């Protein structure tokens, strides 16, 4: 039997859109797929997963200890349900990057990271070297393919489905060596960076935490999510979850506007799939202008207030 199992990502209440993107990748592979939702009191989330078009069955594995996002607990559950599946897919988010290699190792296989295109059931493309090269990866057919799906490369499958939901108890006891403590969320009410259709980012040039309010207020005017360069996060101007790039979030909004970001490869790799890239930088020779669709060589501290006035 050849089937795909997708590991759903959620926060206990809401299914993360990364799951429907994994489903798009599964659709491209062209095999029937099921979705596993692991967690505690997850009937709602399982219901959301069941609407993903094309889903065979949603398996809801419900146990108190699965409520915490500990890869050690989740991996052993996935392994317990892995037999019969030729592929196990998860998202390239921090959730998937933490979990999927643990599953792969328990199954004795290497993991395919960051699938950006499907060439065949065992033949994929993925970026390496911060997106500076694309490699064709062929996975062995005799063993399970465990992979992460590069969410910025895939559109979400629509929510017109109504798959069956099957509840199951956990197969394994909780590990005792790891304990989840808490999550300190940096984000406010703005659209999620990874799914927002518009994103406005600030770099080192913002100069301070207070000045980042310029970014937030412009973003709020046009309903955009907000991002940042590593330099801005390192300097403490904004929380880590805003970092865009090789080591932050890889995003693909329709519109990306970068203020005071130079355009280092590690940053640019995070926005290569954006529809339109706009750069505002006072240095006309900044590398970001090489890849920007629209560039403006000017001082951001003049440009943002002017834009706010024009849009307000």
């Amino acid at each position, binding site marked *: 039997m050849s089937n795909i199992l997708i590991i759903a990502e959620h926060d206990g209440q809401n299914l993360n859109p990364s799951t429907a993107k994994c489903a798009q990748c599964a659709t491209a592979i062209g095999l029937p797929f099921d979705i596993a939702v692991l967690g505690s009191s997850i009937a709602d989330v399982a219901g959301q997963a069941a609407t993903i078009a094309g889903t065979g069955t949603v398996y809801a594995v419900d146990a108190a200890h699965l409520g915490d996002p500990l890869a050690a607990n989740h991996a052993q559950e996935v392994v317990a349900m892995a037999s019969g599946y030729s592929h196990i897919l998860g998202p390239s988010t921090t959730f998937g990057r933490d979990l999927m290699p643990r599953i792969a*190792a328990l199954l004795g296989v290497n993991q395919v990271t960051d699938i950006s295109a499907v060439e065949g059931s065992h033949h994929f493309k993925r970026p390496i070297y911060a997106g500076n090269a694309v490699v064709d*990866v062929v996975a*062995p057919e005799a*063993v399970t393919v465990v992979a992460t799906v590069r969410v910025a490369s895939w559109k979400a499958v629509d929510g017109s489905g109504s798959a069956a939901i099957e509840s199951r108890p956990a197969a394994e006891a909780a590990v005792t060596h790891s304990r989840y403590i808490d999550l300190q969320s940096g*984000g406010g009410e703005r659209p999620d960076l*990874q799914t927002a259709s518009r994103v406005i980012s600030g770099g080192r040039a913002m100069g301070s935490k207070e000045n980042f309010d310029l970014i937030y207020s412009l973003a709020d005017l046009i309903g955009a999510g907000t991002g940042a360069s*590593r330099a801005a996060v390192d300097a403490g101007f904004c929380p880590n979850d805003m970092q865009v790039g090789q080591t932050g979030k890889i995003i693909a909004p329709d519109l990306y506007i970068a203020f005071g970001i130079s355009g280092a490869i590690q940053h640019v790799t995070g926005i290569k799939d954006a529809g339109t890239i706009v750069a505002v930088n006072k240095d006309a020779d900044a590398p970001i202008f090489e890849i920007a669709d629209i560039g403006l060589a000017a001082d951001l501290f003049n440009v943002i207030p002017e834009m706010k006035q024009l849009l307000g």
Partner: protein
Amino acid sequence: MKILVGIKRVIDYNVRIRVKSDGSGVETDGVKMSINPFDEIALEEALRIREAGNADEVIVVSLGGNECQQQLRTGLAMGADRAIQVDSAESLQPLTIARAFLKLVEKEQAGLVMLGKQAIDGDNSQTAQMLAALWGRPQATFASAVELSGNKAMVTREVDAGLERIEVDLPAVISVDLRLNEPRFVKLPDIMKAKRKPLEVIPVEDLGVAPENDLQFTSHTPPPVREKGIMVEDAAQLVAELKTRGLL
């Protein structure tokens, strides 16, 4: 307690990557090589743990050909006590690397393994999680703060939603993120001293580990290029252009 630190030799992060015209890989001839930036941070953290009196020995480990001894020497100059090169002519994939690390963990009775969150060549982000799985021990990935107390580590993790804290019992595997610390600079006398520190070479076969279920990398291509676009003069033109394109 002994801490093992993974040191991977990679193309320096400042080098402009070029794909070879025959598609067999990326150009490495005459290219500057360095320690994977995340691994420098892992080593720095291990050294600080030792300096705080919570570890006795820091051992840097690299899997690769003899050329990776260069990066191991840099690690020794930073302050590691000794080095192990697991010698392998062919480049190994994360599952094999994790299996080799497990053998060294058992041999050295290590209490902590510190690796990078990802190697910036393959951007795999797998080895730490795989080692933890094979070892049956905790993984604390993408760490931006590590606090040891007794037999436990409190680790702050950089995740998509913010900062997550988990507590793990040792032994454990920690993979480090960029904001964990600022690695120290190597001073000249340390480079001289590092030459006398022990560097053991173990052929990967001697660890009883061989590649299995490897992926094949059949062809490399340059990424699609984004064309340089237009320049506008001021904010008014910018907003007008975005409106024309239906983006605002």
